């Protein structure tokens, strides 16, 4: 399940080999038992626990890795070529994310968080000659390390308060004492700050737009999906460790979710660059996932809503970034709304694919995005969070504004560009597989 090995192969073959590894990992993850079990209990001392939720999250992450490797194949033909190490760093990041989903201990979480983040920093700044990517790297590294130190401080305080950093022991401490001791409140607050930073929630969202803009397009897609999936999994596991803990923080998360959704929408409406718009819409999607976190019930926690939404969001976002990475042209020259005028007349299939992804993200049936939002809203209603459900729907309607704007530009304006692209079938193939995934995931809950 955890693989970060990499063989010495030629650069041309590297993406194929990494796709093979991702596919193998995906199959292994799929066939692994989905019962609650501690992995290698004697070696890791119960620090890693797998269950159906972590399995689903792992599938999403590995899938993201697979499609990212596939997209890179085309992307690096049009842009500065990468070296072999790019793909191995991609594996390190994926390994860190998988560890993060499994971890049930604060310091293990911190270490896997850092394995993941360090690899992602390298991916963001991989194109050393481009000044924008260096700037994105600097901003991300500074703020990421800052958030990481908050996480360590939080773990130290929780350790002081509960006497252990294992989730199970913290939980049993809380049930015998209370979650309201100053050390636990302070510690949990610091840890939440770090998590909220990583998922780009409201007060800590400013970095995400610059970093997504500066990074290479496939890397942006990978960051937007896999990183979010991993962080939300561990966030949910931490929050669900005890009911008293969740009650203590539910109001706090309520407001964070609210501001994240509307703040993200406001930023997205004002953007003229597609990558920046997608980054801002990623903030909005974090807001929806936070609704799901507010609504989780710790007694019967399975995380199925969160896992489904993560999958639905990931296929849509990965798809649009895959499309952007082959339509973007040399050196990502086409990235603003105006550059995509009349795409539907020149490249009807690509435009249709992008439209499907956008509609999925906006939540139009019968796509996966609609089902994901449907589950989140119903879970909020059943958890008696009526206000949050209503705000979720309003924010979803607001988000149509900028998704439909791109569709209108693509379909109802005259083309000014011929959209010359490098002849490589992989990113387009990846895009169309993901279109299929959008519908398959959307219909999956109805069929089953």
């Amino acid at each position, binding site marked *: 399940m955890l693989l970060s090995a990499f063989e010495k192969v030629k650069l041309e073959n590297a993406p194929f080999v990494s796709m093979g590894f991702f596919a193998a990992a995906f199959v292994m993850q799929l066939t692994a038992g989905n019962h609650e079990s501690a992995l290698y209990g004697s070696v890791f001392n119960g620090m890693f626990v797998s269950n159906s939720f972590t399995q689903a999250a792992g599938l999403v992450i590995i899938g993201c890795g697979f499609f990212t490797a596939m997209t890179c194949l085309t992307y690096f033909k049009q842009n500065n070529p990468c070296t072999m190490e790019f793909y191995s760093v991609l594996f390190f990041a994926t390994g860190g994310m998988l560890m993060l989903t499994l971890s049930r201990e604060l310091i293990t979480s911190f270490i896997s968080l850092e394995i993941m983040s360090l690899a992602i920093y390298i991916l963001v700044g991989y194109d050393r000659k481009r000044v924008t990517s260096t700037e994105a*790297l600097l901003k991300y590294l500074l703020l990421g390390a*800052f958030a990481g130190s908050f996480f360590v401080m939080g773990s*130290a305080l929780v350790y002081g308060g509960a006497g252990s950093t294992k989730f199970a022991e913290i939980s049993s401490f809380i049930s015998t004492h209370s979650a309201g001791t100053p050390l636990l409140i302070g510690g949990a607050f610091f840890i939440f700050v770090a998590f909220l930073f990583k998922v780009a929630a409201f007060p800590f969202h400013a970095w995400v737009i610059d970093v997504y803009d500066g990074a290479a397009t496939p890397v942006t897609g990978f960051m937007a999906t896999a990183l979010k999936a991993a962080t939300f999994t561990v966030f949910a596991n931490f929050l669900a460790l005890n009911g008293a803990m969740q009650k203590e923080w539910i109001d706090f998360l309520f407001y964070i979710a609210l501001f994240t959704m509307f703040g993200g929408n406001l930023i997205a409406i004002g953007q003229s660059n597609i990558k920046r718009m997608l980054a801002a819409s990623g903030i909005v999607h974090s807001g929806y996932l936070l609704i799901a976190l507010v609504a989780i019930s710790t007694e019967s926690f399975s995380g199925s809503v969160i896992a489904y939404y993560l999958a639905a969001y990931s296929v849509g976002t990965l798809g649009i970034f895959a499309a952007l990475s082959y339509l973007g042209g040399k050196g990502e020259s086409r990235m603003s709304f105006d550059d995509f005028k009349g795409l539907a007349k020149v490249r009807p299939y690509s435009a249709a694919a992008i439209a499907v992804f956008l509609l999925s993200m906006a939540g139009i049936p019968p796509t996966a995005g609609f089902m994901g939002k449907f589950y989140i809203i119903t879970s909020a209603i059943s958890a008696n969070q009526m206000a949050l459900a209503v705000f979720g729907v309003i924010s979803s309607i607001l988000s149509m504004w900028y998704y439909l704007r791109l569709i209108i530009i693509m379909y109802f304006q005259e083309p000014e560009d011929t959209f010359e692209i490098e002849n490589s079938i992989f990113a387009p193939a990846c895009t169309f597989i993901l279109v299929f995934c959008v519908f398959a995931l959307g219909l999956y809950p109805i069929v089953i």
Partner: protein
Amino acid sequence: MIQNYLILSVILFCIGILGVVSRRNVLIVFMSIELMLNAANLAFIAFSRFHESMDGHVLALMVMAVAAAEAALALAVVILLHKHKGKLDTDVFSLLKG
């Protein structure tokens, strides 16, 4: 007894935050982040003594290892910055506005 250590740790942590927020030089910002991590380490060790278990010591060692890895990457970034811009102020970067 433990209060003294915790107060020191919190003071160090706050100095770190202040450094990150107010200083403009990239190296000093990274040093402030290291200071924050070490403040957390101090808290770990103090709590470890308080609980009379060895867990905290081990955890502090882990954190130090991660901090070293982060410092290595950070220094690489500093070199990259210097190649591009010739100086190490965070102000010189304004290509991406957000």
